[in-house]
């Protein structure tokens, strides 16, 4: 049994990402009696973030503060987290399957000569065995996977494994650990913010995605407005990206991102098999398309056949009304 589980936390703009709390929830699914130890790296005072991890179920948190950890690099974070792993000798490690998680965890697993199950969407116990469920072929199928030997190590997909309820009466120790970090061989000179402020596409509860039917970069404006009133993020089909209506970082599909929001609104998207692979496991799907024969209607829970430029503004107003009356 995994008695000691490390959860590697991650923040964006000084705020812990929700997937960190979900990772604590995942650790509890691996073993509800385990001691869950949070790990946080950064430069500033990490105490308030550490407290948040404790409110969400961590028993204690180890923080590593060092000027070389100002921005994530695999080199710097790798050294810091490995030092904590060596101290704690955990039975399991869990982290979010985010840009940082994808970059860091294979390095750690390689160093530790361990297995690693990436992008788990569910964790279940079958007898003593911890079984991880993960999508393959971009969600066209799923596999159940186990770690046969040594450390249990997994990354979890945002939005799938629930976090525990926040409980600010919980308390736990926060330990500051000093790690000597050697000079970084990879240096980040600059970060250009292109992603829209606020909601990250892979973590968004609502995604408004546009396809070729949106017709232009300008045509995406109402989609951004709709995403905004819904507190969601904008995505796109490959067709829209190829046509330069938006950046490739928004692409959803077999190439691009796979998303599983609570609500997916497909706007002017025909529904090619490659796109469906990236979104068809969303909880509720709405399709808005001029073409009643569009394939997207075959996976949509609700469909509106009509001109998106007519439908979206009305939809924005209706959602606003709803929020006002709520």
């Amino acid at each position: 049994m995994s008695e000691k589980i490390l959860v590697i936390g991650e923040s964006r703009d000084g705020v812990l990402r929700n997937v960190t709390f979900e990772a604590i929830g995942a650790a509890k699914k691996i073993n509800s009696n385990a001691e869950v130890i949070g790990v946080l790296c950064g430069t500033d005072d990490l105490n308030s973030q550490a407290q948040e991890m404790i409110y969400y179920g961590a028993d204690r948190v180890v923080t590593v503060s060092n000027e070389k950890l100002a921005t994530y690099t695999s080199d710097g974070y790798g050294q810091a987290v490995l030092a904590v792993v060596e101290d704690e000798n955990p039975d399991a490690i869990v982290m979010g399957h985010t840009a940082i998680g994808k970059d860091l965890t294979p390095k750690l697993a390689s160093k530790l000569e361990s297995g690693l199950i990436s992008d788990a969407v569910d964790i279940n116990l079958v007898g003593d065995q911890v079984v991880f469920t993960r999508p393959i072929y971009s969600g066209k199928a799923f596999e159940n996977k186990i770690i046969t030997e040594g450390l249990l190590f997994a990354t979890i997909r945002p939005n799938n494994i629930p976090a525990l309820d926040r409980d600010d009466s919980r308390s736990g120790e926060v330990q500051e650990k000093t790690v000597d970090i050697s000079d970084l061989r990879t240096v980040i000179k600059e970060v250009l913010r292109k992603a829209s402020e606020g909601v990250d596409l892979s973590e968004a509860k609502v995604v408004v995605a546009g396809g070729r039917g949106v017709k232009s970069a300008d045509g995406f404006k109402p989609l951004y407005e709709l995403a905004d009133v819904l507190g969601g993020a904008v995505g796109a089909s490959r067709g829209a990206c190829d046509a330069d209506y938006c950046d490739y970082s928004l692409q959803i599909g077999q190439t691009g991102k796979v998303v599983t929001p609570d609500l997916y609104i497909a706007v002017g998207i025909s529904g090619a098999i490659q796109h469906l692979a990236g979104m068809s496991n969303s909880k509720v799907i709405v399709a808005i398309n001029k073409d009643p024969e569009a394939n997207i209607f075959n996976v949509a829970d609700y469909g509106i056949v009509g001109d998106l430029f007519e439908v979206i503004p009305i939809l924005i107003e209706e959602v606003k009304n709803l929020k006002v009356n709520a």
Partner: protein
Amino acid sequence: MNIYVLLKKTFDTEEKIVVSNGRIEDDGAEFIINPYDEYAVEEAIKQRDEHGGEVTVITIGDEDSEKQLRTALAMGADKAVLINTEDDLEEGDQFTTTKILEAFFEDKEVDLILAGNVAIDEASGQVGPRLAERLGINYVTTITNLEIDGDTAKIDKDVEGDVEKIETSLPLLVTCQQGLNEPRYPSLPGIMKAKKKPLDKLEIDDLDLDEDELEPKTKTVDIFLPPEKEAGRVLEGEIDSQVKELVSLLRNEAKVL
């Protein structure tokens, strides 16, 4: 420059997935170069054309993987290596793949290794960073631009939509993200030439490896398809009232608003 590309064949993205007896049915399926690996092949060729040197494409797979290697050679790669594990390995995982590649690279002089940031089948994205760690070289994942000047590499890295401007040094492993380049189609003369380019075939025995060392750390116990999504309701009436109905359904029936 000694440039290497890690390549994997994957199902064509058009393929529907069929599962029988807990395995993916691959009889009759069309295979392609993993789309992200195509960016890696293209970038390797571009870097070679700019800086000189040689591009070697490596895959771990079966006899049939030769087809994807020939395609990469037709695009412009110089050499290919097929490490055929069909007879030796029942199962493998990213740990196994990394071990094999580590053994392959043991006696190689490497300046640059390129790979896709993820394969569209297993989609773990582990092998690149795992290998870099074993080889003790720098790595940067999900790159969208690469400029090499001497031993210095200037890189744009996609981080969930933001761009990090990174500087690092060779030897280096990078994994390629969409937007890096536009992979070329093999030309007819390219396809003719590819037939004569060297393609080495190796097996586990040819590498300095014990099969015991290749024991995977993970195991797939089951594969299944997601529940079939049923077509839902297409609303009717005036657009205005359809939208009102939609909002009401999303709130009261689906409970997502």
